[in-house]
């Protein structure tokens, strides 16, 4: 009784990385431990993949 498309399902790959930044409600931005703004560090963004199009994530509906 399983729909056809679910024959192709895979375990969801939630992002396992622990992000090295935290949200600062005063700045309304995520900041690194050294106080820098995380979004300005493009190399880090690329490494973490947190701005990447993903699938199967609860937190990323439209990618």
């Amino acid at each position, binding site marked *: 009784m399983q729909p056809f498309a679910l024959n192709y399902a895979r375990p969801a790959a939630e992002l396992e990385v622990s992000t090295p930044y935290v949200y600062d*409600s005063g700045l309304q*931005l995520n900041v690194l431990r050294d106080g820098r703004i*995380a979004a300005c560090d493009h190399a880090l963004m*690329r490494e973490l993949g947190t701005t990447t199009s993903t699938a199967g994530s609860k937190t990323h509906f439209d990618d």
Partner: protein
Amino acid sequence: MTVLILTSEEDVTADMVVVHLNASGVPVVRLDPADLTGGVALSGEYVHGAFRGHLSAAGRLVSIGGLRSVWLRRPGIPASRAAAPSGWLAEEAGQALYGMLRGSDARWMNHPDAARRARHKPWQLRLAQRCGLPVPATLITTFPQAAREFAERYPDLVVKPVSGAHPQDPPRAVPTSRVAPDADFSAVAFGPTLLQRRVAKRADIRLTAVGERLLAARMATGAEAEVDVRFAESQAPWHPVEVAPRVADAVHAYLREAELAYGAFDFVEDGDGTWWFLECNQSGQFGFVEVDTGQPIARTIAEWLARPAAGQEARVNGASAKVV
């Protein structure tokens, strides 16, 4: 006049836009509707023929009449982090927040009605066809026999979810996948199934549209590459690519018809260089393209959000909106 951003705290992609708004001196209030009744509060009164409403978050107070734009980015379910969350409270909180915001003159990226409609993949396919974008032959059906006949006509098929959503119990992903030549289609009867002719691609294209501006990026692939780029084991970098005038005209028509100020279009490029439309994500990610290509997507979004609200159409997107 303030830009209101509705998104989660962990949305570091939104940060890329906040940085530009801050640099421009444009006031920003960022909040997650999930925090309503906790860190987020609202109030609005309709008295003597007038409306006055306010939102507050993290010590900031903003008048709803003082909003120039609303960026509906990745908002959580309203009040889902309240002390006693419930479906009823979520509906109440959502009606209160979005109901007040809908009455403002702010410009939306994207308006909730347009966003909801734009998520329907069958609707996307039809709109793309009408706008002149090439769409691979597609069938959505619960008839196993229709699927078998489609597979005879188009032997090389992919299957993908109709909704783009993924089952959560247990959490699974349903990527776009090639259908085996000897597939048994009897299970098509148990759920609407989207089958599409596989395009032998030489590149994936992500075209990010912000108002009138189109920023396209290309990633070269092999013809037998992973069908779903999100699941490719190793990815080449994205590079900026020009948009052919005919494609640009069709994409602009799509945005106008869909009343979208923002859209992330996915195409595949075939051996002839034709871009085949796959889908348009009305809130698609863009950070990964910007960090590879250096294209100023975040800055363009910030500029769109920073335009004044007064004197323009209330909900129509930047593609056709008049700004004075």
